[in-house]
């Protein structure tokens, strides 16, 4: 069982996973753009300095250098903050990396509102949408350190571009290292429920679980499922969840346009329509503030989620 109070950084798990990969596979190379101490590629850089490439503050160059390395048989992992990697590098990702399905693993950190005080320019709330819209791209958001490690291993083995989204913040430990197996086609059920299922991803899982606890007190049985792989979405898995519980709510630290909610809606509306609500940032830019204050401001709290669920269940 998970413990929401034991937390650590997925980006540190990422740095350690890179070292593991690097120890067994000499083709693994890691690239950064002057943020290695924040993205935690510094952990790899310390161990394998000759296979670490810092291109300086030059994200476009970063992505295409990685493409060149991959074209020559290397397995590059590329990191910077999400806003700069996906944003500044979007067209490089689309036209050089994804078009030919080049094997570049893009692991961006500090996504969502997690850069708090730095404000709107640094808060990536559109990255899932813009990565998801590129053909051939996979989009994965791990929820805890164990899952992060497994996803990094998956990406290294998978041939083709993958975008992995990480937060700056700590995540609760949800999974046992011994028992966990990552399968992009099946989503871990963290809590069973009969009335509604909350589909969430990454750091928002914690809030989904807390919302479900609140709802239980009000007699509403809410399940929580970790949708780690947003693209390709496991449509069969989503539909079978929608058939089990009569309503679906999605929760993400991202714009409500184009993210997890959109992906799930695109599936359900065509394959298995059920009443649904999408919770996320309502098409706005972020702003400066402590991260917990921002979650309040943008309605990403367990109380808000519980309220939305109650209304949805009552409407039926």
């Amino acid at each position, binding site marked *: 069982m998970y413990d929401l109070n034991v937390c650590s950084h997925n980006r540190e798990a990422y740095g350690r996973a890179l070292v593991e990969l690097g120890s067994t596979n000499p083709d693994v190379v890691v690239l950064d753009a*002057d943020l290695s*101490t*924040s993205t935690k590629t*510094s952990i790899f850089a310390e161990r394998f300095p000759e296979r670490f490439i810092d291109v300086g503050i030059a994200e476009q160059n970063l992505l295409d250098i990685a493409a060149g390395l991959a074209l020559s048989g290397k397995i590059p992992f590329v990191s910077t903050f999400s806003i700069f990697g996906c944003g500044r590098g979007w067209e490089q990702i689309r036209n050089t990396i994804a078009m030919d399905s080049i094997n570049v693993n893009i692991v961006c950190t500090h996504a969502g509102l997690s850069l708090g005080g730095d404000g*709107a*320019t640094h808060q990536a709330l559109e990255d899932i949408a813009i990565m998801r819209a590129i053909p051939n791209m996979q989009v994965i958001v791990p929820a805890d350190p164990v899952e992060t490690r497994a996803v990094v291993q998956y990406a290294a083995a998978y041939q083709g571009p993958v975008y992995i989204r990480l937060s700056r913040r700590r995540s609760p430990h949800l999974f046992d290292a011994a028992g966990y197996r990552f399968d992009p086609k099946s989503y871990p059920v963290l809590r069973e429920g009969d009335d509604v299922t909350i589909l969430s991803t990454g750091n928002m899982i914690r809030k989904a679980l807390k919302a479900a606890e609140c709802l239980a007190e009000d007699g509403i049985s809410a399940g929580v499922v970790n949708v780690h792989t947003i693209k390709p979405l496991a449509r069969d898995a989503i539909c079978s969840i929608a058939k089990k519980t009569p309503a679906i709510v999605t929760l993400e630290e991202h714009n409500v346009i184009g993210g997890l909610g959109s992906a799930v809606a695109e599936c359900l509306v065509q394959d298995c329509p059920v009443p649904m609500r999408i919770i996320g940032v309502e098409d706005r830019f972020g702003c*400066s503030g402590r991260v917990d204050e921002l979650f309040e401001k943008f309605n990403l709290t367990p109380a808000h989620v519980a309220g939305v669920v109650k209304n949805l269940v009552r409407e039926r």
Partner: protein
Amino acid sequence: MESGNYDNLNEIATRLRRHILEMTARAGSGHYMSSFSCVEILAALYFQEMQVRPDDPAWPGRDRFVLGKGHAAPALYAVLAERGYFPVPELMTLRQVGSRLQGHPVKSYGLPGLDASSGSLGQGISTAVGIALAAQLDGADWRVFVLLGDGECQEGQVWEAAMAAAHFKCDNLVVIVDYNALQSTGTLDEIMSLGDLRAKWEAFGWSVTEARGHDFGSLQDALAGARARKGMPHLILAHTMKGHGVPFIEGNLEYHSKPLSADELAGALHALEVRH
């Protein structure tokens, strides 16, 4: 300002550093080290060189300023407040929800005196080229000033803008590089060397001057040179020290984005007094 006597400006610079320390300490985050690097540059611009009217911040004839290295927002905010654009106590709202003083400058929050948003490195200089072209189109004689980080010069966009400004003969554009030789995770020479930076800008068709970036006299000379020379854009390579003013912060990258502890804050404030 009398040339030769910079006591007044040096006093202002010390006040600015004190504001920067206090506001970032209150916020619990913010780039004081990068801000210290450009205190004198910003003070020289806003207190001497730029034609501005703090009581009429949107005056159409004003000189414009773009903070390419947007993470030095605390320094810009402090200088705007000291110059009278808004009350000094508002500095303490830095990075709070709803504040006009966002962590990186956001123009739409309405802070008086803020000409452009920034925070994503490399974009500010292109915006400034556009502003300079608008002045040319209008036949107006106001100018545009930009502060770039030296690490920021690693962004390809900086060189696209450099090419454009020379091509369009933007002699109303003055770019100052805060040349502190450090970026966020190391020295520029370790991470990504800029080589002969002066020669690079010259090769792009700019008039280049060097200055001591914490010395008002030297900055004033360089700015006067930029004012006099026509036909090409101007670059001032301002040699600076990241963290200048507080010895334990100077050149120590541990402090690039780490909040100061209460003891460190007290020590830093004390160091400012002593040095002054």
